[in-house]
């Protein structure tokens, strides 16, 4: 309680939330390097929210780096590109980071290829009609790189009755350990800004705010120094607090306004894009490179050499670990994403995907599990929940399968950020219960 008062910085933020140990200094000062191309690339057709892409290649086909191998199969879907030159081996079910087996294109990487892209005609961003920009972005397979992997072109066409007047660029990176957005801002600020310029043009607006947590002063400085003078772009330092980078929390911190329950940010005229997303948008119109790789943080005390790497999507976890010096003896858990919302991996064969901002190898000490005790109604979860739910009550309801009642208590607003589980002294897996309840509820509603 008192410690909470001491941690208030006076910078804009949102109410509630938690302060997990940041652990960013493991990698934040390490410049990104290119990971060697692996012998095989596995590209799932589903790397985004929405319908899986439709494969366009067949076994035996030769593909160059950047070639389309699968096309979007609907409006909310995305293109998938070959991330390395080679030969298509097969299209088969393969372990997917989300847990199940998913149809994936396996490509045997050509060890003799220079891995350059096929030369292609790049449309100049200023000459493409505004309404076609989102189409180019869709064809480049761009999805939100903040973790959700929502196809970006969909976001760029907000509902007619909800015009967007401000673009919020998310450089918060509130998940502990992760430094990939931080490195993106430091190493490619001109790409981030160029991407912002293109997105602004696609939206037909001129104003953008870049929100960055104050634990990245160098990124704040460089983004300010490189901001173009002809657009209304400002950089807003924000309090270091999890989940500052969640869309609703970022908007609350920057504008002081709350996105209404069940509504999109466009309901209050805002649109959020991650800094890594805008940087990859810039590349599409600079070199024609679609979304085929990104900076990923490989960190945790279970990996020998933590660092930041440019990794082509489809690289298998085992290849990443091998390139980072292997595992330490006390490595216990491998997580795709951050420690608060990331997913535990059960296989070393899973490929890294567009949304994989980080790969954490946690040691036993870092992810200690304690026994689950009964809820003592301490109320700490209510003080942690950024969307003002009552996790204590909902946890009790989840345990007795009263899912409809949970819906009445705004289960739909829960974004599974994990704050309640994080603070619970009885170690009750609240956000896991809520994730399962959401599934159960949608089954009930479908029936």
């Amino acid at each position, binding site marked *: 309680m008192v*410690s909470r008062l001491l941690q208030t910085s006076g910078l804009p933020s949102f109410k509630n939330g938690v302060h997990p140990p940041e652990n960013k200094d493991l990698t934040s000062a390490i410049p990104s390097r290119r990971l060697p191309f692996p012998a095989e690339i596995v590209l799932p057709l589903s790397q985004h929210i929405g319908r899986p892409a439709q494969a366009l290649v067949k076994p035996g086909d030769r593909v160059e780096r950047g070639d389309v191998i699968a096309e979007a199969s609907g409006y909310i879907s995305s293109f998938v590109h070959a991330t390395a030159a080679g030969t298509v081996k097969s299209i088969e079910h393969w372990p997917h980071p989300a847990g199940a087996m998913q149809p994936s294109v396996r490509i045997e990487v050509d060890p003799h290829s220079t891995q350059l892209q096929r030369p292609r005609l790049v449309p100049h961003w200023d000459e493409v009609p505004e309404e076609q920009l989102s189409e180019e972005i869709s064809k480049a397979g761009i999805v939100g790189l903040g973790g959700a992997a929502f196809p970006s072109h969909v976001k760029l066409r907000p509902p007619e009755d909800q015009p967007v007047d401000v673009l919020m660029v998310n450089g918060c990176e509130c998940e502990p350990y992760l430094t990939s957005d931080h490195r993106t801002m430091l190493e490619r600020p001109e790409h981030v800004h160029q991407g912002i310029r293109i997105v602004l043009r696609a939206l037909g607006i001129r104003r953008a705010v870049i929100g960055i947590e104050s634990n990245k002063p160098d990124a704040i400085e460089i983004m300010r120094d490189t901001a173009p003078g002809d657009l209304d772009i400002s950089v807003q330092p924000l309090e270091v607090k999890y989940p500052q980078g969640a869309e609703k929390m970022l908007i609350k911190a920057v504008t002081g306004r709350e996105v209404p*329950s069940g509504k999109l940010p466009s309901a209050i005229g805002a649109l959020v894009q991650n800094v890594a997303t805008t940087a990859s948008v810039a590349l599409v119109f600079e070199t024609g490179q679609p979304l085929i790789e990104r900076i990923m943080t490989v960190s945790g005390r279970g990996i020998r050499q933590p660092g930041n790497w440019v990794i082509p999507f489809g690289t298998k976890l085992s290849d990443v670990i091998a390139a980072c010096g292997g595992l330490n003896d006390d490595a216990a858990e491998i997580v795709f994403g951050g420690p608060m919302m990331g997913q535990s*991996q059960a296989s070393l064969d899973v490929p890294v995907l567009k949304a994989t901002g980080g790969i954490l190898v946690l040691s036993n000490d870092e992810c200690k599990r304690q026994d*689950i005790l009964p809820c003592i109604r301490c109320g700490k979860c*209510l*003080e942690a929940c950024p969307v003002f739910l009552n996790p204590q009550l909902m946890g009790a309801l989840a345990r007795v399968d009263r899912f409809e009642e949970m819906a009445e208590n705004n289960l739909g607003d829960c974004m599974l950020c994990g704050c309640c589980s994080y603070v619970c002294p009885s170690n009750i897996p609240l*956000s896991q219960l809520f994730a399962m309840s959401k599934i159960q509820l949608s089954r009930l509603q479908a029936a």
Partner: protein
Amino acid sequence: MKAREAKHGTVKITAAPHVRTADSTTRIMWSVVLSLLPVVGASIWIFGPSALLVLVASIAGCLLTERLFGERGNSLADGSAMITGLLLGLCLPAGFPLWMAFLGGVFGIGFGKIVFGGLGQNIFNPALLGRAFLQAAFPVAITTWPVRSADWWALRGDNFALPFMSPGASDAITGATPLGNVKFGDDPVITPLFDLFLGNISGSLGETSALLILLGGIYLAIRGHLNWHIPVSILVSVFAFSGLFYLLGLSPFSPGFMLFSGGLMLGAWYMATDMVTSPVTNSGCWIFGVSIGLLVVIIRIWGGLPEGVMYAILLMNALVPFINRATQPRKFGSASDKSEPAAEKGS
């Protein structure tokens, strides 16, 4: 759902989040026990071996009942039964027969907690329920207050009275508590505030030193192991209402005397703050605390008993589910919008 502890060389597959705070229910409970040790020490220093005996008896009653009837095999380890035993012992007089103290512990844990389903399920504070039972069953023994004795080693009452035998005449000197003194004394004496604060008075074991209870409570509040809204609202409410009634000439107690006498400090910092039996929201805690304060003042001034902290807390414990329902957090996104964006300020 139970976490599988990975041994060396095995891979953990768990649901997010993969990191947790170091705070645990077990740690919270044992830090409460730790913070009570100075109070325990003071009670032994003031009341001699009798204090220790009463504490041991009530703790034994609690631990034994938890061990025998607790649902989970290791429920002693979480420390909650230990707290109940300590708190119950601290609100008993030093000369209390040990078998009664033991029985109070058995009742408190058995009927106060285990019949509801164990830790986290009970409605009433188990220690206070145990004391309420003793108050009803043994009204004389529980209001026999020994004063400081010249001989530290002397028992302060008939601690070793056998069950269901009337306690033998004791040579310990007894005296009225400061509250009882003002309320029922033939020649009302107002105990000086400074004595109340340091604990140089007669009363139950933990009723005596407001200073040490305050220090323990503040320690817990800083560590985030108790919700400071509760004690602060109770104390503010007692001070405000007793001040009001004092000024109106309705009450013989000055607000300062009200704050530092009786079981108020122990009740406000250790009994009302029991997480299980207090509201989950901070606004609920304010309602809870202010109501307790008002009830304490009313019972002390107009009630038939000299002290009202126990009944005030138990009564409000019963209302906690309603307070929780009435103070649900507002839905995110339902606040009135601020039209002024904060964005431009920083850059």
